[in-house]
């Protein structure tokens, strides 16, 4: 019993999970039962994949000990490059592939510059935030191109399931979340990611290719962000160059609320997702509870600090529980 208690206190995503349950109950009561009804849930689940996928990428990268501030710009650049290509007559699958390659290249540059010039990824990706945003506007020529009408929306944004509860994007999100979560917890690569972020000198001295591990995480993060941006553009029906602004900090907040350590090594994909759901729920719940919507950012800010404090406190409590031997 004591061991079980200790194991759960050590789980980094626990604080977020408790808050999540608590807020759902509060919002459900405050909104007179509107919060958990089908229409509202459908609204939340329709947007969740877009910020959720970005949070997954940022979470994994943060566990490996690095940072990416360029995700919001990549979120806009990837669908914009796709749109420009499609206007030129490139078919959707090829444009998708090209868009993902653009993301991979940006992730590679982020990682390469950070690792080989030994500068903080905060700086590299801050630079990339501006570069990628600027490129988005440059390739669009100032006017967002019109998307072709024959897009495979059935694969990405159509409503499916019982009562048309989910968008297809939600299934993509669940699939990617499960895969990345298993990758982190069940594969040797996941072990290397945690070791690299947990204590770099030890990882390097045990022969882990830490540079390649980080590079892979940077590229994965960029590709997930770009893919998420594409989902949003398909949902909105137009590639606006301004989408994803401020998303980078929201993604970091999601990860941190979900128990991911800024210093690396600690965290789970599930935690990042819990953090994202929390932010989405607050966004939605404040409106439903008829609270002035300008309190939204206040709530996120408060939650970020509170979750980290709560996590630190619980970890200390867990450590204090002495086990025999």
């Amino acid at each position, binding site marked *: 019993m004591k061991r079980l208690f200790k194991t759960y206190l050590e789980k980094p995503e626990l604080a977020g999970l408790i808050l999540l349950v608590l807020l759902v109950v509060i919002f459900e009561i405050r909104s007179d039962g509107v919060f958990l009804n089908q229409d509202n849930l459908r609204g939340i689940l329709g947007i969740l994949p877009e910020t959720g996928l970005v949070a997954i990428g940022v979470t994994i990268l943060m566990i490996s000990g690095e940072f990416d501030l360029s995700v919001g710009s990549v979120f806009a650049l990837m669908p914009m490059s796709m749109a420009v290509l499609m206007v030129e007559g490139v078919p959707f699958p090829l444009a998708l592939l090209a868009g993902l390659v653009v993301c991979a290249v940006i992730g590679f540059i982020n990682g390469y510059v950070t690792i080989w010039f030994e500068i903080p990824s905060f700086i590299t990706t801050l630079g990339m935030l501006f570069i990628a945003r600027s490129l988005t506007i440059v390739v669009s020529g100032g006017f967002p191109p019109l998307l072709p009408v024959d897009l495979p929306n059935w694969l990405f944004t159509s409503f499916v399931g019982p009562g048309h509860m989910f968008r297809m994007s939600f299934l993509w999100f669940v699939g990617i979340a499960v895969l990345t979560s298993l990758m982190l917890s069940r*594969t040797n690569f996941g072990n290397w990611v945690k*070791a690299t972020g947990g204590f770099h*000198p030890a990882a390097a001295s*045990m022969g882990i290719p830490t540079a390649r591990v980080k590079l892979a995480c940077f590229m994965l993060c960029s590709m997930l962000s770009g893919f998420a941006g594409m989902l949003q553009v398909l949902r909105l029906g137009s590639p606006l160059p301004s989408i994803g602004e401020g998303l980078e900090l929201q993604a970091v907040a999601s990860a941190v609320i979900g128990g991911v350590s800024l210093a690396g090594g600690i965290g789970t994909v599930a935690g990042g997702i819990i953090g994202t759901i929390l932010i989405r729920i607050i966004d939605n719940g404040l409106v439903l509870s008829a609270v002035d919507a300008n309190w939204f950012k206040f709530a996120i800010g408060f939650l970020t600090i509170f979750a980290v404090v709560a996590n630190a406190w619980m970890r200390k409590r867990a450590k204090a529980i002495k086990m025999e031997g």
Partner: protein
Amino acid sequence: MDDAIISVRNLHKWYSGVHALKGVSLNFKRGEALGLIGDNGAGKSTLINILSGVHTADEGEILVDGKPVRIARPRDAMNLGIETIYQYNSMVPTMSIARNLFIGREPTRFSVFGVGILDQKKMGSESIKAIANVDLHLRSPDALVGELSGGQRQGVAIARAMHFKSKVMILDEPTNHLSVKETQKVIGFVRGLKEQGVTGVFISHNMHHVFDCCDRVVAMARGEIVLDKRIEETSIDEVHNVL
């Protein structure tokens, strides 16, 4: 010469103008516990870093079992059976004991290009065995390394080296920051190496520790070897005088 498991010949190393190793030649004999002693900056860490693949020598050669080898990365050294336990911990505190034991050498159930699904069952059972083999008693292989004491961590590091059947175990100041009791435990580990047929290299600047557990003492100063004698042929005073 025949019983040398590792020989280094005329090793030189410069660090941005500083001549850290000035032509060091040394035989590490099979099954022997060798104590490497010297003040800070004497070159002992440089020598060890070259053997463990953290740095490469600018000049000179390394022979393992009489054959010339190239050690460019930590992985190369491990593949040759040379395992190093560093003075800073070679453990990731945020990970479990089982995961730490297999860092970089995880058993997988199948893999594509070296990436695959962890065999967690095997990791659990083998880490219990590995820890028991070095006479360490820990509650569970799932405990976080960050919760262990410094001595226990060194114990796990030694268990790891034993588990991967290393032929040569280099311990770089393993007793730093340890309590007296834990230091005794680590010294006990070094003594036990011989029974397991493992060659030990014990780096320390504490003479008493070296004289406690080693067969031979090598002293370094200013990038050179200044003394190389069997323990029974020398004394702490003599080693002190040459440093």
